[in-house]
């Protein structure tokens, strides 16, 4: 079965057991929401950093699929194909 990779920012890797990349098996396109549920399931402290308890992606967390942030696509319903990578990048924000 093919895999989809989720690349984490280095600051979050410790919450994923030190892994900078998490993978989920998928033989057909899945949604970003399903993907985050799947890779975050084993790491709830990581999942809480990405989404709040309503499931919404936190304001300054950006999720990129094929180079486009999902807020400009279909949000958590954006589809990801097997073999693709999903990037999680924090916004340049704060001070």
């Amino acid at each position, binding site marked *: 079965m093919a895999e989809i990779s989720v690349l984490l920012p280095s600051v*979050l890797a410790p919450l994923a057991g030190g892994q900078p990349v998490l993978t989920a098996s998928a033989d057909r396109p899945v949604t970003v929401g399903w993907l985050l549920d799947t890779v975050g399931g084993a790491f*709830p*402290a990581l999942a*809480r*950093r*990405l989404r*709040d*308890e*309503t499931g*919404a992606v*936190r304001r*300054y*967390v950006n999720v990129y699929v094929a180079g486009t942030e999902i807020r400009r696509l279909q949000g958590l319903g954006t589809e990801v194909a097997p073999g693709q990578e999903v990037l999680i990048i*924090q*916004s340049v*924000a*704060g001070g």
Partner: protein
Amino acid sequence: MATSESFLLAIGTKKGLWLATSPDRQNWSLTGPHFLMSEIPSVGIDTRDGRTRILVGVRSEHWGPTVFHSDDLGATWSEPENGAIRFPEDTDAALERVWQIHPDADSRPGVVWAGCEPISVWKSTDGGEHFELNRGLWDHPHRGEWGAGYGGAAAHSIVVNPDGDKVHVAMSTGGVYRSIDGGASWEPRNKGISAYFMPDPNPEFGQCVHKIAADAAVDGRLYAQNHHGVYRSDDGGENWQSIAEGLPADFGFVMLTHPRRAGTAWVIPLKADGERIPPDGKLAVHRTDDAGASWKRLDSGLPQAEFNSVLRDAACVDGAEPAGVYFGTRGGSVYASADEGEHFTEVAAHLPDVLCVRAAAVAQVPVPAAERSGAAVSA
């Protein structure tokens, strides 16, 4: 390497947590930052159950809010995997910020209260590792009409009486609410407190209360620092009267009470809501020893000029004799008094904005001399 009593001062700032320890409340050793670049809006020091637990509300702009705790004076930190405070699914709400972490009375070890944004009160029975939403306040019919202060819509003060039946909560901007059944149901208690910014200046609720505190020795006596107004209630919040006369300003955020002595409270006045600086740029704490009938200006050891304000939880008292008084400014200075405010010494300077401070006498964890480090600050 003997274990002895020491004093712990936790300093939460806009960009991290600092911890200071002192054997005498005069000379302080500072370590930190912990949680660098995260906002620390709340800290609780729980010395019950034979251990010292530091509970910290941590909020990252990127990664959201959470609650950490340490049982080894900050050497290591833990958080529950699924989070200490999570809104239940049916509320369709998300935690924004933990404004208050309040260990309950000694007679109820393990019970810890939290006040949060959005406006909500939470109770833990496992020492602050997991909290349950208080449904009585969350489902209150007034909730839709509670407003947000400039800092956010938060329950920021929780006062529980020794028996545990009466609980007072203060929120910005909803006012004071009281429960007489341990938190099951709540009613507004703001009679006598002005809300000049409302169409009706004497509403049932909607007052902008900045902080409330209970008199430890007089049952039913409370004090409140409001957005313009300093008040006292002698009947559990049923009625409030102004005690601002004698103060240089009735604005401010801080309200502290003595851990044991009746009638003693502290405020730190600011000029006004439009000019949030100490009056004339001169920082001073004011203490009453007669329940607000008169006030004494205390500024020994404080800087001649200070234009930064002191936020609502950036001040505290400890439980020692005489009581210690502590506060920090938005300019990152922290001051401590070992004699109830008569004389202050500078604990730290040039930190980020101080959001909260908490102090307590603790059983010091023995640390080998070689490992004692940090920037020592002498009085």
